[in-house]
């Protein structure tokens, strides 16, 4: 089980190369990074996984895009939309993470979507950038939404991932700092540990105890 930052943006999206981000991640206590637009590899002992973010698409296009990337072993994320869209995303096989839930509609993620996420092993991402760089109402709204999601997570036990969405090494935070930031949204240490290995949970879902033949 590897401690993972579930989304960083190296150069050319950000100002730091993937190697430099891996070097920084190593000193900050991470084992793996999920990067946008960079092919998988290993740098300075840090596993770098390719991440694909799909946004602003219809469900039909989303399904065909996910089908295209089926054999790429990439971590596929989808930007959250309205409630209907999110429920549809939960049912698409191959989608790993639902992102941007803090900026979606208030009713975008309800108990039905939470149940579907748990059944289909789709993680909901906690983006820490509004907590780090946000101020005022933006941060308050994010804290409120994350607390609401965590209430559903405790009830339905769907996977959670933590991501810094760092575009620079200056936006990356240490594992201990992230634990501190997560305490703002009522996550205790076991919750944070579970969220850090959330990517492992979604990449290798547990085998069912009973198989229907």
């Amino acid at each position, binding site marked *: 089980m590897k401690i993972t930052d579930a989304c960083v943006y190296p150069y050319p999206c950000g100002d*730091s*190369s993937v190697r*430099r981000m891996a070097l920084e991640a190593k000193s900050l206590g991470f084992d793996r990074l999920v990067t946008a637009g960079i092919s998988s590899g290993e740098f300075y002992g840090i596993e770098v996984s390719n991440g694909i973010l799909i946004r602003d698409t219809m469900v039909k296009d989303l399904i065909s895009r996910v089908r295209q990337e089926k054999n790429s072993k990439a971590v596929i994320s989808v930007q959250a939309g309205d409630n209907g869209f999110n429920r549809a995303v939960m049912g698409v096989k191959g989608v790993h993470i639902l992102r941007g839930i803090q900026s979606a509609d208030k009713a975008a993620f309800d108990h039905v979507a939470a149940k579907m996420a748990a059944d289909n092993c789709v993680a909901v991402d906690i983006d820490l950038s509004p907590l*780090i760089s946000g101020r005022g109402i933006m941060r308050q709204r994010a804290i409120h939404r994350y607390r609401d999601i965590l209430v559903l997570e405790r009830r339905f036990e769907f996977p959670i991932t933590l991501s810094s969405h760092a575009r620079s090494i*200056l936006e990356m935070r240490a594992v201990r*700092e992230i634990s501190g*930031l997560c305490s703002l949204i009522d996550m205790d240490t076991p919750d944070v540990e579970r969220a850090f290995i959330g990517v492992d949970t979604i990449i290798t879902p547990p085998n069912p105890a009973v198989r229907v033949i």
Partner: protein
Amino acid sequence: MGTRPPTLREKRRYILVSVEPSGTIIDRKDLYYAVCDATTSLWGDVTAAVIMPAVIASEGHYMIIRCRRGTERELSIALSTITCCRDNPIALRIVAASGTIETLREKIRILKTPDRELASSPECMFGEKLFQIDYCYGQKVDAIEKGFKNTNRLFLTKEDLEKL
């Protein structure tokens, strides 16, 4: 108000932080305003008054920040929300916490201060743009785009420059 005897004084804690990007020298007063702003924004005026943050010493790119004993956790969370100081993007990495300044000064002496290494070439090409190498230590290379305006800073490694 006179100095109180030691038993009546408030107990304090000192947090040692290093300022990233390496080699950045920041004025103590500017950092104090950034710390106060982050603390007040996150915890509010009442808790900020309890924490009583203050930047009390700086050695190179290390800074020692003081708080009231028992509020280290709140201060460290607030420190992780600092993203810039006087419009310069920075990050504060917490190195250690102690009850005395002297222990932290010893820690600074033990930690090797990354001095600037001489790069093999003062300039480099990356992404079809010309950059001037600003800081070089170990594998880390910080480069600033050459030009009069829109000069971006890039964080690279020596391996990145060798691959080109």
